[in-house]
């Protein structure tokens, strides 16, 4: 009853929603729908101005999808994309866990600063952090200089330009997401349980393995999902670290849109990536629901 006084009138509700809805329509609904439509165009038409006047885009064909799914190369690309996602998630989550646990249980005066240091990299562009890894792993980079100076190497080795460099950079770039996600779960794990276990004589490794890890499992899973989906859709890092030799879905999409100007093909690859996204997220929800049912 009281709520009535603070509920805006109908026309105002509509007026408040309309601009946001319009913006979402133009910047989200329309582009995704148009992308799906273009992926079903018959011939390899580009709608870019430099490719001549716009080709009338009509007709319906699954040709672009047939070209993706009929080519073993693209199955290999899909497999490699998923592989990079899994490896990145499997490295980033265990590496983020100690930082999150340390921050969650720290009573230090520096805790605030340490939280900011763990999360601040999120506020710096992926391009800049990828560049940092180019400096570290490059031919004249830090690792090579150190190995040369200590006499462990006679010639600089190639650490950059490849799968290894791409995964190292992705792990570092996506770790802060995992730290945030694990930190928020650890905040909900009851400290008294740990204290009780410690009083009963459990050592720290036991407490971590038997109490904290099982209770934090949903948070670890969320962190893994987040890192995985961000890794399989990342473009800048594989493009720059891979030196044109690491092929994943994102680099192929970029190539088809800007180099070969094959828009239906780019659309089909994007839809494939979107479907992978949907599958992984629904799998995650199913696993999470099962874990909650067991708890």
């Amino acid at each position, binding site marked *: 009853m009281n709520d009535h006084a603070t509920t*805006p009138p109908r026309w105002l509700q509509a007026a408040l929603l309309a601009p946001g809805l319009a913006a979402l329509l133009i910047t989200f609904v329309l582009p995704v729908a148009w992308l799906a439509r273009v992926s079903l165009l018959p011939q390899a038409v580009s709608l870019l101005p430099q490719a001549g006047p716009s080709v009338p885009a009509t007709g319906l064909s699954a040709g672009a999808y047939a070209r993706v799914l009929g080519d073993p190369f693209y199955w290999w690309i899909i497999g490699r994309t998923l592989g990079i996602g899994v490896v990145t998630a499997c490295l980033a989550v265990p590496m983020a866990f100690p930082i999150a646990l340390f921050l969650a249980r720290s009573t230090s005066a520096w805790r605030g600063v340490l939280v900011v240091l763990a999360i601040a990299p999120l506020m710096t562009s992926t*391009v800049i952090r990828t*560049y940092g890894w180019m*400096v570290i792993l490059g031919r*004249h980079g830090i690792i090579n200089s150190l190995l040369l100076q200590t006499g462990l190497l006679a010639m600089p080795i190639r650490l950059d330009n490849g799968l290894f460099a791409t995964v190292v950079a992705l792990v570092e770039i996506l770790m802060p997401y995992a730290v945030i996600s694990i930190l928020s779960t650890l905040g909900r794990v009851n400290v008294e349980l740990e204290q009780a276990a410690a009083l009963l004589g459990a050592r720290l490794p036991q407490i971590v393995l038997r109490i904290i890890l099982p209770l934090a499992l949903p948070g670890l899973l969320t962190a893994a999902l987040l890192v995985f989906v961000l890794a399989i859709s990342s473009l800048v890092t594989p493009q720059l670290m891979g030196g044109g030799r690491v092929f994943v879905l994102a680099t192929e999409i970029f190539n088809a849109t800007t180099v070969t100007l094959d828009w239906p093909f780019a659309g089909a690859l994007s839809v494939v990536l979107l479907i992978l996204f949907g599958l992984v997220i629904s799998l995650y929800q199913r696993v999470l629901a099962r874990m909650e049912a067991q708890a």
Partner: protein
Amino acid sequence: MSPRAGTFCWRLLVALLYAFLLAPLAVVLVVSFDTRPYLSFPPATVSLHSYAAVLRNPAFRHAGLTSLTVGAAAASLSLVLGTAAAFALARGTFRGRAYVQWLFLSPMLVPHIVLAVGLMMTLQPLGLLDTLGGLVLAHIGITVPYTTRIVSSSLAALDRSCEEAARLHGATPWQTFARVILPGLRPGLVAAGLIAFLFSFDESVIALFIAGNDATTLPLAIYQYIQFRTDPQVAALSVLVVALTMIPVAIVERGISLRRAVGG
């Protein structure tokens, strides 16, 4: 292993992980003081030469201006649209509210690269490719879910009885909004606007698809530069960009803790 050795190993592990996490930014900072035209480590000199070169570089200056303009425009528009939508969603009683709410959050579930391709195909016939307007529009799209969500949660935290008291004492709806609701929302609004600005300022994938020749943002300028060259100039530019993103964060942090200190 004794407990002390255990604690030491544990702290060492955390320190090493921190070193890994902060390595690229630390390295960029160190390299930015070098003067040699190629990438090498450790630096031969300590000078601000590269910084001066960046500030004189017309391409970088143009990109900086573009990034600031697009970030400010996208963040303020996204804040207005998101706040209005958050109000309608929090206080509205229309049918299908759950669906609209979901629609406002759904762009977060779509990878940026897919949005980028779709935006490129949509903005092209509108003649908005490689324009400031196109970039602003695209960045509104990716930031509106966040501004809506942040303002929604601050609205949910407000005590509605204050609004009711204001209305009972004869305040008009507008007065209630301006004098009661808005002050309570301020921290949420500042956070939402800042997040939107930073997302726009750091965004590179969408910009890579829909801009690049004329409307070049800073991440895009850095990307294009390091594809061919890796000299210290781009390190200096990177340090400046990171500093530019940290300044607003630090100011807001300080503002909030200052208010906390004053408020006791």
